[in-house]
């Protein structure tokens, strides 16, 4: 018959064979969890507490508490959050737990990469720069406003002066120079108005991606 070659028959061992190998048919079924520790054959001897030991025990407890509250006890941020959530609401209100001190290390005696405060400073530099820029803009605008106001007042004064001057200029010999002055006076207000507008449009053109409609 085909397919009855080597390895064709892969049935399990018979009961007799299992018995020969020492396997019992009815394996013990575990109904309850095993005891945590194996039963102790001999009762351990009770330890005597000497004076030295009691001192050491007390000091150890104190030391571990001190370490737990010290800045050297490093807790991850997630763990800290979890602790806060678990904290009693009364403690939260009373704020009994003092904020932990930041550990102070002699970073000069450690590799530079461990001093994270250096890195922080670099990262923190970006924001103040932006802020200073903003304040600069505001200051600049104020300065410009003041300038405009000043220039407006000066213009008025200039106009008054120029009117008197023009009367004097009429008496001047050069007619072309007189004409230029007149042109300047006329264009002074108008030119600045148009200049600002053009600049504004130009900027818009540069910034906008699409065509201006």
């Amino acid at each position: 018959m085909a397919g009855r070659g080597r390895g064709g028959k892969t049935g399990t061992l018979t009961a007799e064979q299992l018995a020969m190998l020492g396997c019992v048919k009815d394996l013990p079924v575990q109904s309850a969890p095993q005891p945590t520790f194996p039963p102790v054959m001999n009762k351990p001897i009770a330890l005597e507490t000497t004076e030295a030991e009691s001192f050491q025990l007390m000091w150890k407890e104190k030391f571990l508490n001190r370490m737990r509250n010290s800045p050297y006890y490093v807790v991850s941020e997630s763990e800290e959050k979890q602790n806060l959530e678990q904290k009693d609401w009364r403690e939260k209100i009373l704020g009994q737990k003092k904020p932990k001190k930041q550990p102070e290390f002699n970073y000069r005696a450690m590799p530079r990469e461990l001093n994270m405060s250096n890195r922080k400073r670099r990262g923190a530099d970006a924001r103040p720069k932006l802020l200073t820029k903003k304040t600069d803009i505001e200051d600049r605008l104020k300065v410009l406003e003041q300038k405009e106001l000043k220039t407006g007042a000066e213009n008025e004064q200039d106009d008054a002066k120029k009117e008197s001057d023009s009367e004097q200029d009429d008496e001047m010999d050069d007619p072309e120079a007189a004409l230029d002055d007149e042109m300047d006076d006329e264009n002074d207000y108008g030119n600045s108005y148009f200049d600002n507008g053009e600049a504004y449009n130009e900027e818009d053109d540069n910034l906008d991606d699409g065509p201006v409609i």
Partner: protein
Amino acid sequence: MSADYAHLCSAIVEQCFGKVSQSVSDCLFSATTRTLSQIASATKLSRKEVGLALSVLINFRLVNFEATKLNPFVPEYSLSRQDILCLLRYPRYIHMVQKKYGSIGASIAEELISAGSDTASATLTKCLSDEDTRADSAESYRNIFLQMITDHYIIKRPELILSEEQDEVLPKFESNECDYFRHPNVDLQLIEKIRRGEATLAEAGDSNMIWNVNYDRFHQDFRDAIMIDAIERKLGENASECFRFILKIMYKTTDPWQRKLSNQITFVDIKQTIEKKSNNLDLMKHLDQYITLLTDDSLGFLRRVGDMGGGLYVVDMEHAFQSLAFACIESVITERFGSKAARIFRVIRFKKFIEQEDLQKEAMIPAKEAKSLAYNLFQDQFIHVKAIKKAGGGGNGLAKAFYLFQIKEKDSVRMLLDVCYKSLYNTIERSNFEKNEHTGLIDKSLRLDCIVETMKERGESDEYIAEIVETFTPPEVEILNKVKNRIKTLSKAELTMDQTIFLLQMYQHHCTILPTGIGKYK
């Protein structure tokens, strides 16, 4: 380093420095060296957290760093695995300092231990700022600090070489053995100013001299105490006093951590020293007899090697710790399997190789019982079996073989050391479990104690205080007492187990050539 030791180290670091430091130390334990980025990626912690944990561990001398071989600008970190266990010995160090230098010394050692490492000025400022210690003068603090340096209990860290380039990637240190115990210049007036807030620590002239506790000096004292106590128990007080003087003379000419034998000591030296420094007339009168007693004793701490100068002697550290370690193993066997098993162990040790049948006869124990006990000892790896096959079987039958019991001393000690690490880890874990299970109850009791204390300070009536105390119900009190007792027993077990570990580590140092990391300056 076994897996048990790794677990123990992890638990100790967690206990003292928190979970982040634990993850970092676990990561470093499993590797020889690692860089910051490798640690961060392996532990899945942020670089900031890893950096902080590494800084803490470096500060406590548990992590070392050096430049990688490929790139001198990238530091890689390694863990001082053998030093982690020293964290558990801090209470013993403090107790020893307390005994030698009183509360001032203990306060200095406590501040230094809690800070990991610090300058003399900073340590003394902290000590003097403590409310409990204000009664003592600043001068006495300084003198004891300097005395502790002279006695080598405090050691200076290698000095930092200040370079022109301020922001160097890796700092360089100058290590000079002559400089380790050079006294710093401590300005008490400046310390007073710092305390008052009129000056800062940066102004102190000793900011480059960082000090920390010299673990191996304490270990040397612990080792001596083990030997002296053993002699006192066996041969009496006078013999132990005599041996204490012998050790003192030995340290003048021998490195305290020399592995096998000390340099030679003459009888005349011993006699002169005892006559000068001891008031024990009985010892002076019978000195030669006490020395003979020490040399003839089976412990073998002292050995006569010549007759020059009234007799030449050496302290045999190897033999001493062999005797002590095996006394310890025998006591463990007695506790675990009974005295008959200990007898079997002794017989095998005495005979070196012995067959099952001979063992029964030699130990004078019934065959069945002897067999069962020997197999129990074999199962727990206290004894081993050596198979010797008879040469030239040739035929079809099985070759005849003899199975002999033997003790592989180093293996047995190592096995017991691992058992100690494992049980110490279990003890710490169990203690933590008890604390976590009853956190609420412990917190409540602490809060109540605090309230009662405040009420007493305020002068509230006893009735009112009793009413407040009654808020803690009798069943709660009972549970709390049980938990406290359990934690106390576990802590006591920790101390005792550490003593056994120390003894077995001393065996490894003096009786093997294994690297133990023990040195004169650490």
